[in-house]
């Protein structure tokens, strides 16, 4: 019989929600890419928008300091499996970005305030995109043109996060709270 511990900060439910939303985010990105037919402005807006909306719902559901950090950790390990080891070196930077976003949410009134969650997710997304862009510079440093194209795509993606993701996420959280699926207090 294995030894059993009690009293975790991260209860099993929160961990399962983080794992499920990471899986859902990847599956939804795949869905949008398949429907949208690859790299075009509408697909980019929708893909990033949906990912951000799901992230807002996840943070509103988990409601614990470190939710974004945990999500980042899982998402980065998954990225390692999907894109190889290239991105693993940036894990500390991503975690730092998530920590800043988590701290911002906590400082702005906590995870119960929807606008604080939206602000935190917006900052988290911005951090993530900047780090991704820095990484693409490292990969394609010999050809600035490629980095420039990447920067345009990243900027467009962030537009999708701000214009589609955050409003949709806010609407989802309100509806899900109304339906009792996400706790109000």
């Amino acid at each position, binding site marked *: 019989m294995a030894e059993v511990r009690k009293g975790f900060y991260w209860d099993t439910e929160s961990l399962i929600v983080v794992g499920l939303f990471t899986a859902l985010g990847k599956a939804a990105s795949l869905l949008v890419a398949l429907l949208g037919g690859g790299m075009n402005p509408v697909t980019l807006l929708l893909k990033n928008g949906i990912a951000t909306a799901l992230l807002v719902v996840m943070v509103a559901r988990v409601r614990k300091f470190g939710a974004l950090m945990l999500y980042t950790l899982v998402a980065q*390990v998954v990225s390692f499996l999907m894109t190889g080891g290239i991105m693993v070196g940036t894990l500390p930077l991503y975690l730092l970005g998530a920590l800043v976003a988590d701290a911002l949410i906590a400082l702005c009134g906590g995870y119960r305030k929807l606008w604080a969650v939206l602000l935190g997710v917006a900052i988290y997304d911005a951090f993530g995109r900047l780090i991704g862009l820095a990484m693409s510079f490292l990969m394609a440093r010999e050809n600035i043109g490629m980095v420039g194209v990447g920067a345009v795509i990243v900027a467009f993606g962030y537009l999708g996060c701000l214009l589609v993701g955050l409003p949709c996420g806010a609407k989802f959280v309100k509806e899900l709270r109304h339906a009792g699926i996400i706790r109000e207090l």
Partner: protein
Amino acid sequence: MRALSVSSEALDIRTRLLLSLVVSGVSIYLSGTGPLLALGAATLLYVLASGRYKVILVAYLAVCAMMALTVGVILLSFKIGEWFAAGTSWEQGVAMLKPALLGNFHTPFLRMIPALNVLLAIGLDFSVQRFVGAMKSLHLPRVALVPLMVFCRFVPEFIDVIRQLRDAVRMRGFSMNLGAALIHPIQAIRLTVVPLTVRTLRMADHLSVAAEMKRVGYAKRPTQLLALRFRRVDFAVLAVAACLLAAICAWQAAIPATPYGPSAMKSDQQQEAAHE
């Protein structure tokens, strides 16, 4: 060939993960064509040992298409700049691109090849059970292990849910494509994302109750159904890889550094100005 293959039966998943990590890191450091080609060739041999030639060919064709698309987008961005008369003009763009095409334009693409090869070596023999076993044997904390296990188990489930959703939307007389999303974006989100989100949250409820009942993640030492062990072949492959990587890095160090990015462009401009 299959008997000699570097497949799941021969190589531990942790060996392949470690190789992926190290090779990707080294490929970022390398910038010379020779060392990158050598690393690409070595990793290609490694992935060819799996014997899955058809899949490897398809992956390579997909990456080639992606590279062609990238070059096309770069050229198009210069054309757009000319149309709007706000950015770099077509002639300026081509003039900027010409030395890069002749010089080290190919380097970022060459850098992707080793990373692709080591990734294929993981993906071609990927098994959820073996991966979960590897994560457990790495003594990852519970906070990382439980979400990762959930992720690995539920991606196929979500893909199935998405298929069901597509059928349900079709039955209601709506279509799920780019045109429909463009004309009715809110409806597209309502019909796809909302059911997925609600389903996920309900699934999380059921799964967390089941996990609590089974006390998942509470044991100090998680039970391992599949015991992973490093074998001689793992040590041999790691040793060969270490020697090869050291040699390639030494080759790279012997090549004089070439400037890149804005500094390179500035020095080119300075040279042109001095020439004039």
